[in-house]
């Protein structure tokens, strides 16, 4: 489903964040992306979102090179990809409810459908009581969960999650991970960048380790650290 051929990303300030990455991810896979701080995980996910374009190489999703999408096609591609951003990227002027509903509004979902699905997904992340709050009035973990709710509310084909549990306590984290597994079972491909060792170790999924912009390990059912 997702194929990367020799992908490199060098930022304008000449930092080489990714170097010659080759990777295949099949439909319905659950992949952990691990590696030290600054390794290039977020860069990897931003490339898949078509938030940024690679300096060289091809990224093929469902047979289409997403680097060649025309400007007007990009939004339609992005609707199939949900992303939980490391810095949440919530709209400060909108309430929690409106932030989540926004992902449905852009697809012109009928209002009745929006009114049904938003409270449902807010309940899943445990925020049903905070629907009317604004992002600035939320705790860090609550903001993170709003971002999760927004990413999953329109049932994307691919879910990219960046540091999904960085601001969550272990219990809430496990609740969210159960949710992720549920979503994954329903057919969504999940790529998740994380530093949470215990989650990676316990879930026994495919683990791709990046270091200094290179893929240094790609192991099915692996742990946070390689066997070496």
């Amino acid at each position, binding site marked *: 489903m997702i194929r990367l051929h020799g992908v490199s990303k060098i930022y304008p300030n000449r930092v080489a964040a990714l170097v010659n990455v080759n990777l295949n991810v099949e439909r319905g896979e659950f992949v952990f992306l691990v590696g030290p701080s600054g390794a290039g995980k977020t860069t990897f996910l931003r490339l898949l*979102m078509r*938030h940024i374009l690679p300096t060289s190489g091809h990224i093929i999703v469902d047979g289409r090179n997403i680097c060649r999408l025309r*400007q*007007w096609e990009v*939004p*339609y591609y*992005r*609707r199939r990809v949900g*992303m939980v*951003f490391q810095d949440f*990227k*919530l*709209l*400060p*002027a909108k309430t929690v409810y409106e932030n989540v509903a*926004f*992902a449905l*509004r*852009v*697809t*012109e979902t*009928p*209002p009745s459908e929006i009114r049904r699905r938003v409270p449902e997904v807010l309940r899943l992340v445990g925020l049903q009581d905070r629907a009317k709050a604004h992002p600035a009035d939320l705790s860090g973990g609550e903001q993170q969960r709003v971002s999760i709710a*927004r990413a999953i509310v329109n049932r994307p084909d691919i879910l990219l999650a960046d540091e999904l549990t960085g601001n969550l306590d272990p219990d809430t984290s496990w609740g969210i991970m159960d949710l992720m597994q549920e979503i994954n079972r329903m057919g969504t491909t999940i790529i998740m960048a994380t530093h949470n060792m215990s989650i990676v170790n316990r879930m026994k999924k495919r683990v791709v380790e990046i270091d200094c912009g290179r893929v240094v390990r790609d192991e099915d059912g692996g742990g946070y650290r390689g066997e070496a």
Partner: protein
Amino acid sequence: MRPSTLRYYIGESLAGIRRSTSLMSLGTIIASFLVLGMLGLVFINIYHISQFIESRVEIRAFLKDGLSASDIRGLQSRLSAVPGVKRVSFISRDEGLKRLKAQLQDKRFLLDVMEENPLPDAFDIELKDPRNVKSIAATISRMPGVDEVNYGQGFAETLFTTTRFILIVSMGLFAIIASLVVFIIGNAVRLSIFARRREIEIMKLVGATDWFVRWPFLLEGIMIGVAGAGLSCAVLVVLYQTCLDYVGSGMPFLPLVSDPFVIAATCLALLFAGAVMGATASWVFMKRHLRV
């Protein structure tokens, strides 16, 4: 477009207006339109007054002595036929003396010392465009029966140069200031969009099309433009009416434009300018933030 989406756009743009960045631009826009509207009215009045003053320039053609009544009638119809002439009226020498007395006011003593009326019969000739006075006067002076023509030679030329200068300067000033005001309004909208560039980026990242992001901003731009122009129109009309009343009672000789049609047209022009400027400013300045 679904009706729910339309409703969403309108709701969003109203919400946008309520946010402080937009309110600040609204203030700037009202102020700018007030400046524009005031100067526009001043300019219209300068134009009107200069037209009025120029229209006072007319030709007086003095007749040779001893013309018969039919000669005079014949001359009158030939004068009326000269291209550029609007109206020709006969002024008998007695009528002429009466008018001269009224006109000379404080120099009336000049006439008191005269034994007989020094004036000949004459025609007063109003012109369609007073700026042609020189050539028309030349034509008329060559007509048989005409002794001498008089249109305030020298003075008329000076008057035209002066009114043309004042018109050019005020039009130039108005044009420069209008473009400065357009610039100020554009800048206000730009700054307001700039303050929300992160939001635009987030919307695009969540899968919104350019138009989905743009519509609320465009509507907001139009609403702010129209509201700003409308409010300043209201203020303008009140101020101008006060001015008209003041002039009407104290200086009836000053010919200000009081035609409600002209004033309404000025307001409509402002409203239209508001809508167009709000929309284009939003459109133009959003462009670069949409490239995500």
